[in-house]
């Protein structure tokens, strides 16, 4: 094995230009794939935040009597479709906003009326959008209620965007897989052509198949892993650069907190690169001289 690593190293050094070229093309391919994944991951995150499935806020009129509110709470709790009911006083609402952002002077000066009392309800996720709308309109007509806000349509929209994004990412992934295989395979074939004598000699002195092939597979693995690692590096750099430029106030208000690819996905990308590289390396050997 150490001999194979030694020979792989020798091969990589001797043909470094060729290998550098293929690492760069691999990196480009993986940046595309990674960017698509990044979009999917963040859309997913957004959906998670917004789409606490079937959540609704019932804003109460300022003059609503406590008894009316209490009756409404009881009625809501008695509705089978509703899973949870929580009363949010104006003070609570204020705390929710300031709790996370730490308190901004201009926001603190907002009048108490800016934070109406509300009842937060969780609707069971299996309830269809139409039924939720039915319940909502009934609640909205009650005297104590000012307005009802649901996130259903948003969630649905986001869901379809996410679905489209996932499909696009999958298509990209397929293209990248093909490209990676082709690139590494043809690099290996080129390297192999230049080293035809080497392979011929190995065959003639009685090298086993594994002895001949292992260094090439190692080279491919290294190339693939390096290419995908470089891609992750480029993506991380771009990501954190862009994120640092975005207005943090704005993003936190929208509830959009951009996240980078989770470690497992990064690891998966590098591993995929290595695996594809190995396969490419083995594939390039199919036309090995048969001495």
């Amino acid at each position: 094995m150490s001999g194979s690593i030694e020979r792989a190293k020798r091969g990589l050094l001797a043909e470094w230009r060729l290998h550098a070229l293929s690492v760069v093309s691999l990196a480009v391919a993986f940046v595309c794939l990674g960017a698509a994944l990044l979009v999917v991951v963040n859309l997913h995150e957004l959906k998670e935040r917004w789409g606490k499935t079937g959540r609704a806020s019932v804003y109460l009129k300022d003059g609503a009597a406590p008894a009316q509110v209490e009756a409404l709470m009881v009625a809501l709790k008695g509705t089978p479709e509703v899973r949870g009911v929580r009363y949010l006083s104006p003070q609570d609402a204020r705390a929710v906003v300031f709790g996370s952002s730490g308190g901004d002077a201009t926001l603190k000066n907002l009048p108490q009326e800016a934070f109406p009392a509300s009842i937060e309800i969780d609707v069971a996720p299996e309830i269809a959008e139409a039924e939720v709308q039915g319940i909502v309109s009934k609640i909205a007509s009650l005297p104590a209620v000012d307005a009802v806000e649901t996130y259903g349509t948003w969630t649905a929209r986001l869901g379809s965007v996410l679905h489209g994004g996932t499909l696009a990412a999958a298509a990209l992934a397929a293209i990248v897989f093909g490209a990676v295989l082709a690139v590494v395979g043809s690099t290996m074939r080129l390297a192999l052509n230049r080293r035809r004598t080497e392979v011929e000699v190995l065959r003639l002195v009685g090298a086993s198949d594994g002895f001949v092939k292992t260094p090439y597979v190692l080279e491919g693995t290294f190339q693939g892993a390096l290419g995908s690692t470089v891609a992750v590096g480029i993506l991380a750099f771009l990501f954190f650069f862009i994120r640092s430029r975005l207005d943090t106030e704005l993003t936190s208000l929208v509830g959009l907190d951009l996240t980078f690819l989770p470690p497992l996905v990064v690891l998966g990308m590098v591993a995929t690169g290595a695996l594809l590289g190995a396969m490419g390396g083995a594939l390039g050997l199919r036309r090995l001289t048969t001495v």
Partner: protein
Amino acid sequence: MAGPARAPLTPFLRAGSRDALRGSETAQKKAVLVFDGVQKVYRRSGGTDHHVLRGVDLEIERGEFVFVTGASGSGKSTMLKLVYRAEMVDEGRILFCGRDVARLTDDSIPFLRRNLGIVFQDFKIVPTWSVAENVAIALEVIGLSSRLIRQRVAVALERVGLSGRGGDRAGVLSGGEQQRVAIARAIVGEPALVLADEPTGNLDPALALDILGLFEEIHASGTTVMFATHDRTLLDVRQRRILVLDEGRCTDVHTGLDHFGDELDSDLDDSAPRAIVAPTRLRRVG
């Protein structure tokens, strides 16, 4: 060079059998290589088959030096290729150290080749490797320790007159020197048989004689050599057993130093194959 540093026996030969081939009196008589009714046909795309060998019988004993000769296209290279299994026989058997080469599986071909030393006209050395690396590869494939490899490579390089050149890039060597590297690689594993396919073909006449001398030294130390050439002058140097290929048949000839020359000469220099006329010395084998 049967020193203490000896390669572990590769599975192609059972433990002991190789030593038997080298050592004991009875094994001395045992043939290293036997061709038994060997036929080889190249199928051509045009549909016409080309019968290169039409039933070749021969026997090469341990420690022999045998020339293989014949006009261009008579099948010298083919004959050697059959031995190292770059080609397959169509009929007959080839026994190498008692094993039928044609019946080896693809997986055992490397083991066959580890018991052969092969030298070509175009050297087939890797120009980007050092001289020592080019020789060492023959031992690396059998997994010897690097200390042992270094030792034995040094010995082999000395035998071919390249001591001290181990660190040089093989590509910068002259043709004659490159061929010496190839010969060192062929003998470093102490093979049971050395096959040489026109090893002097790319060298000028003086160098060719040098290289032949090297093969004779190797032979003198006990190695069996099969040397294919169409170079007349080499055949005349010394009295040797010569296998002449002609129209798919192999004729076994023992040369005298000079009186045999003329008939062979005319045949070799004329590309149209003709039967050898040397009745007093012809001996068919098989």
